[in-house]
């Protein structure tokens, strides 16, 4: 008996060590990625300061001018537009599906959302090129500007919005469904309307989860490459309106990775762009985590 118990304790200790190694490995991968990117970007960082690289606007690799501001701004603006559009859309869709829709509507919509979420991003890109780009250049932009090719910040934001929408709806649906029915009953029993119950009870209970869902969606949106690359216009400039072309960091990487060997410092510059993306996503996650902890502490 004692021998058998010893074996059980030994197994328990072994599995705890294995799991700890796995956790350390996960952190090590992230750290290795950051260090690898930094080392690869070192040739560029040796003759340019980080501040200089982040604030410069000119992108002329052949003349050793590497200004990343247009790319950083494009990334942030495209993500912001996508999120601004996707957040209310996904929120109200999820509220409708969980709080108002009949069972047959849910049975119809949920599989459609799963299909949308699993589509390869190139399909969204093609859809954007064939539908969104002409729509903007022919029907929307003429009301605001003299000329727009349609390959714009707006097109990128719209395509990205549609791409993150299924993910956000699914996450919100999961969150709202997880709110105990007793809370809904407690509110309804006092004479609250379904909307009052949703707004004051269901959404309120879900706020920490909603913050986490938005973080996940933003992280996905920031790194989205192919679809955005197909509709953004790929011009290294700071967009001054939604009808200007833009050039987010992932598109810069994907477009130029094959050509980098011919120009000195180009490889280092592209690695630096990957490092910026990495740090931006990391910072965003950290800030969100701080907000999330504050919200949880308040509850």
């Amino acid at each position, binding site marked *: 008996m004692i021998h058998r118990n010893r074996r059980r304790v030994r197994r328990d200790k072994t599995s705890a060590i294995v799991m700890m190694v796995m956790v350390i490995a996960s952190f090590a991968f992230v750290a290795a990625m950051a260090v690898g990117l930094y080392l690869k970007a070192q040739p560029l960082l040796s003759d340019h300061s980080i501040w200089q690289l982040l604030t410069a606007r000119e992108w002329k690799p052949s003349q050793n001018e590497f200004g990343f501001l247009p790319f950083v701004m494009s990334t942030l603006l495209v993500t912001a537009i996508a999120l601004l559009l996707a957040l209310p859309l996904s929120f109200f869709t999820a509220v409708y599906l969980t709080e108002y829709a009949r069972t047959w509507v849910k049975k119809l919509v949920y599989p459609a959302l799963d299909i949308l979420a699993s589509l390869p991003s190139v399909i969204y890109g093609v859809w954007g090129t064939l539908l969104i780009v002409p729509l903007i250049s022919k029907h929307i932009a003429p009301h605001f500007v003299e000329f727009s090719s349609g390959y714009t910040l707006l097109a990128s934001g719209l395509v990205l919005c549609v791409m993150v929408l299924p993910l956000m709806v699914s996450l919100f649906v999961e969150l709202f469904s997880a709110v105990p029915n007793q809370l809904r009953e407690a509110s309804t*029993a*006092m004479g*609250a*309307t379904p909307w009052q119950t949703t707004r004051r009870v269901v959404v309120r209970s879900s706020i920490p989860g909603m913050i986490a869902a938005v973080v996940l969606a933003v992280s996905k949106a920031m790194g989205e490459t192919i679809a955005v690359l197909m509709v953004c216009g790929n011009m290294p400039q700071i967009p001054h309106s939604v009808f200007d072309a833009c050039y987010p960091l992932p598109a810069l990487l994907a477009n130029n990775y094959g050509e980098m060997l011919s120009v000195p410092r180009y490889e280092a510059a592209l690695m630096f762009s990957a490092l910026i993306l990495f740090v931006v996503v990391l910072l965003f996650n950290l800030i969100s985590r701080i907000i999330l902890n504050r919200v949880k502490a308040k509850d």
Partner: protein
Amino acid sequence: MAMKERTVKRTAQPLVVKNLNLSIGGTPILKNINLELPAHKITCIVGPSGCGKSTLLKTLNRLTDMTDDVHIEGSVLLGDQDIIKASGVELIELRRRIGLVPQQPTPLPMSIYDNVAYGRRIHKLSRAGRQMHKSVLRYLNAVGLVTEVKGKLHSSASRLSIGQQQRLCLARSLAVEPEYILADEATSALDPISSRTVEDLFVKLKEDYSIIMVTHTLSQAQRIADYVVFIYMGEVVETGTADQVFNHPQHELTQNYLKGIFS
């Protein structure tokens, strides 16, 4: 000029259930229920597990709407208003008049203060500020919580003990000035001391409110009931004053239930 606090006119009308049938997914749960539940009394609905007590209680303020595939026939009358046929504004007002205290304490995800103020806000019974503050304190006082939560009114309600949470739920229900309070095994999740506190509260509250309580504990019903309804397999078997039902039961099923032959 400050707006006067809205006071709700309270009547002392019995709640009348007529020919009530309810099925869920085609399965009959309540069968031809006919009852007259007296005002300003504690009515205990007793019966074995799964006999339809909680479903009957939920039907009285139409919480059954939140269950899929429910079919209801008959009527539940409060004055001349039929709860079963009510919709829109009328249903919201009827739900305010018939409050519910749930089985499990369910504080809403907000502060203690906001929990009590919740109903008054949605029904616009008090204005924010001093008026609301006075109302919140009044209802916390009514359930004996006011001193216990002093200084932490704005902290999360989930931090209270289970017993305190259930009294908070009662305060929240009282705050919309209902005529009836439905309590669905409201003490089953509580420790004996908290359970006794809530029982005593119900006895005190019957002067101003009519209380309908589902209970699985016969001893509790014997302690506090004025009027008793015994349900078995979705049908009302016997009704009467507590003395009639507990001391002189007419039906064999009631006698067997009271003897503990089934539960």
